[in-house]
């Protein structure tokens, strides 16, 4: 649960920087602000980075070992808000300052971390 707490705090922290993006604006009513496009772009980039990570053979083997379908994880990632996605990546990035995250901390750990963050683990708990 301490993990949940940390996660909440991180989300809030990131929300501060994201909160003014999206449709929020001071400009004319109905005008979509530039932040919307920027956020959209970083979201797409984030999803594609996660896709590449999950497509790795070693990560794939680990997903299989846990009996988790990669497409399902991607679907979960797609359902996250941009703030949550960036937070998740932030968690992964904070593990390594550059370099190969999987090589450095291991596929099991990466997979566990992703599953925990996208909430797949909760599904298992309910079995």
């Amino acid at each position, binding site marked *: 649960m*301490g*993990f949940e707490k*940390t996660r909440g705090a991180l989300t809030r922290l990131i929300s*501060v*920087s994201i909160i*003014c*993006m999206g*449709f*929020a*604006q*001071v*400009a*004319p*009513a*109905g*005008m*979509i*602000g*530039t*932040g*919307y*496009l*920027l956020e959209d*772009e*970083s979201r797409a980039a984030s999803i594609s980075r996660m896709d590449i990570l999950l497509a790795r053979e070693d990560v794939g083997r680990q997903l299989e070992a*846990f009996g988790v379908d990669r497409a399902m994880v991607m679907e979960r990632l797609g359902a996250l808000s941009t703030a949550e996605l960036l937070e998740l990546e932030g*968690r992964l990035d*904070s*593990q*390594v*300052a*550059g370099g190969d995250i999987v090589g450095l*901390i291991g596929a099991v*750990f990466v997979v*566990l*971390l992703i*599953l*925990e963050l996208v909430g797949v*683990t909760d599904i*298992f*708990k309910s*079995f």
Partner: protein
Amino acid sequence: MFGAQRVFDGSRLLPALLVLVTGCASIPPSVSELPSPAGSVELEDTPFYPQERYQCGPAALATVLAQSGAAVSPENLVDKVYLPGRQGSLQYELLAATRTEGRLPYVIDGRLAAVWRELAAGRPVLVLQNLGVAAIPRWHYAVVVGIDTERGEVVLRSGTDRRRVTRAKTFLRTWQRGDYWGMVVLAPDELPVAADRSRYFEAIVALEQAGQSEEAAIAWATALRNWPGDTVALFGRANALFALRDYRAAEDAYRDLLERDGAAVAARNNLALALAEQGRYDAALQEIGIALSETDDSALEQELTDTEATIQRRKAGGK
């Protein structure tokens, strides 16, 4: 089933693991990373506002603002960035106050080389230091105005010292405890050295949201010189023109973008509004129709429907 349970009990270990791994992961910046041949640099004419009368936040901010040509006194900044209850300023306030002066705050990479590059470009760097220890922090804002690469020293406007010279190693330790946070103040037509595209763009978006449309327009034009044809920058420039009520120019700018990226639904929404502002309601509604047929994003669809209703209302009322 028990097996599955095990896995998740194992995941409880994650927080502990995170701490362990994080502990040895960060690579501290060092003097040796300075670009070679990196000469010494010092911006001697950077003004100095001693902290005796002002707190370090307003004083440091006034220093970097003045160097960028924004005439502002620390007294005027105190109300904006100083929290008496906390006896200090938050980074967010420094960023926000910079924007209200029509300047672009840009958070640099937390590396000495990045500081050096900005200094070499004539911009002093406002840094957050922790002069205490982790347990008893003593937060402090100062301005790096020089780096002496031969002697391994950093020159700061700090507190009551006009020219405080600190060993680079000592400076790096205090800066590390401030999470290597540092910012420069850019005029709207200036690019940071080795600009990180998305961070720089976010900085301009924040300027736009602060209502500094004129400066945002200049900044996006500057961005377009560095990233020609960039969709976000084109969108930004068009939006700034819209906010400045130059609807004809905004229309052209949106069309310019849509020519490159016909699927830019957000741009089409705004184009429709720019047309409506010129009283060209039918053309506006036509654009909304195209946009609605192109999106499958429900949030965007809602925006478009709202825009359509707005234009319909104005069309009916405007007659």
